[in-house]
């Protein structure tokens, strides 16, 4: 058999060993955790599961997470589109610096991302006394959570759109504009249809990170139950109180969302591949 293999392929035996190792590694590292999440969540039956995700604290955490999503995702999407337009359509000095700055949050530990907002708005922070005098609460309240999450997820949409819009060039936009369309019209009718899948991809990645952000939020939230606990923080509290079933029940909700994110991502990639072929 060995003599019949193509010279640009490995022998079947080698292929099986490589495939086997990869599948084993992925199963142990990724599939097993998925299985654990759902079996632990449902180990005490459906009623306990339902109770864990429908009690007032869990609902408050879900609500807070959704509020944060509703503020952060649109803002960072808007920034992503605007900065991608800027970087892909014009040449100007300092472009590389701007790109580096957009990427910066990727290089900063989530804990530090939270810390910097405590340094700004915390009681001992730069604006601390001013805020205290005016009864404005940022740290240990919703605005702090929103700010820290905004910081962490700044690059997601921009990072998807910039290479895409750079690759697409701008001749169609120029044609549209020279025929009298305004900048906004050009964007909506010409650019948006070309980038919609990349945009959607960036938005769902951003969304997943906003929902799951833990380190940064944990620094600024103050862990006030029912008030400033997002879903990941709620999971932490439950886990540390040895309420494993409840912790995994809430975790399973977030896992379902993560799986949806992966499915949508693959659909988008599959679609863009179809259209480019």
């Amino acid at each position, binding site marked *: 058999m060995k003599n019949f293999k193509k*010279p*640009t392929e490995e022998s079947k035996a080698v292929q099986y060993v*490589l*495939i086997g*190792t*990869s*599948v084993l590694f*992925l199963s142990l*590292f*990724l599939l*097993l*955790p998925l299985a*654990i999440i759902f079996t632990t969540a449902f180990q005490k039956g459906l009623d306990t599961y339902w109770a864990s995700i429908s009690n007032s604290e869990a609902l408050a955490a879900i609500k807070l997470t959704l509020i944060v999503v509703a503020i952060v995702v649109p803002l960072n999407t808007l*920034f992503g589109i*605007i900065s991608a*337009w*800027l970087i892909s*359509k*014009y040449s*100007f000095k300092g472009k590389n610096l*701007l790109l580096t*700055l957009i990427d*910066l949050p*990727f*290089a*900063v*530990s*989530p*804990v*530090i991302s939270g*810390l910097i907002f405590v*340094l*700004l708005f*915390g009681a*001992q922070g*730069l604006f601390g006394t001013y805020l205290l005098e005016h009864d404005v609460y940022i740290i240990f309240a919703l605005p702090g959570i929103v*700010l820290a999450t905004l910081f962490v997820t700044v690059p997601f949409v921009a990072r998807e759109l910039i290479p895409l819009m750079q690759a697409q060039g701008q001749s169609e936009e*120029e044609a549209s*504009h020279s025929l009298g369309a305004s*900048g906004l019209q*050009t964007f909506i009718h010409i650019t948006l249809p070309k980038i919609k899948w990349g945009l959607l991809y960036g938005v769902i990645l951003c969304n*997943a990170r906003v929902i*799951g952000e*833990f*380190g940064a939020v*944990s620094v600024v939230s103050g862990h006030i139950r029912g008030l400033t606990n997002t879903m*990941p923080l709620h*999971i*932490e509290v439950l*886990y540390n109180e040895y309420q494993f079933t409840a912790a*995994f029940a809430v*975790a399973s909700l977030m*896992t379902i969302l*993560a*799986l949806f*994110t*992966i*499915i949508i*991502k*693959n659909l988008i990639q599959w679609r863009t591949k179809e259209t480019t072929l």
Partner: protein
Amino acid sequence: MQKTSVFKKQKPFRLPGFSFTLGFSIFYISLLILLPLSMLLLNVTQLSLSEFWQIISDPRAISSYKLTIGSALIAALINVIFGTLIAWVLVRYDFPGKSIMDGIVDLPFALPTAVAGITLSSIYAQNGWIGQFFDFKIAFTPIGIMIALTFIGLPFVVRTLQPVLESFKKEEEEASASLGATRFQTIYRVILPTCIPAILTGFTLAFARALGEYGSVVFIAGNMPFKTEITPLLIMTKLEQYDYIGATAIAFVMLVFSFVFLFSMNCIQWLLQRKKLQGGRA
């Protein structure tokens, strides 16, 4: 500065919106990224050099640096080996369940870190699904930390390497084989060199992510000072004790280390690219 004057003078054509998008981007970044980050610098400069040195060279801090860098490095190297293997298998071979395996690689990106943390720690705890098969403890030791960091860094190498392998020209392999190279020689001398920049990028991203990782590690680490306390956790502990100065000083060290690392990796990439270009000319 008006649009009409630009047209009259026939300057290079520019789509509208430059000043708006530039202004908005600079405003957004300054307010959200630069201003908060500059707080680190501002707070650190309030310390005298000896105070600063005392905080950052505290034995507890030093052992946290060692643990963080060491486990991030090992995790990133594990990801280089298995990530390269997985990318190769996913691009080159067909097997049942391949699309599921391909899709699931993104799980660590999509799954909240806290969920990963509690899951991994219950798998590798002594009574856990995997932990029970080992005589030694995995969770709550540095091995547990490495497992968590390997988990969160896994997609980086796979996802940066996959497109490179997909676009690799079959002709080059055929040429190599027809000139008498064994399969191993072809892989080692023809395919691997093309992949090195992507593998390096994957390594860089995985390592940088692992350095700062917090959510997936805290649950599995055990968090014992001097033993299983990573630097982000030390920052967190100092914050909870209202030691903002201590937290800031250590955060500053971490940030500088990440930037120096990312910068040197960029330099290495640049050198590799230049070497490749020169090799092409010779």
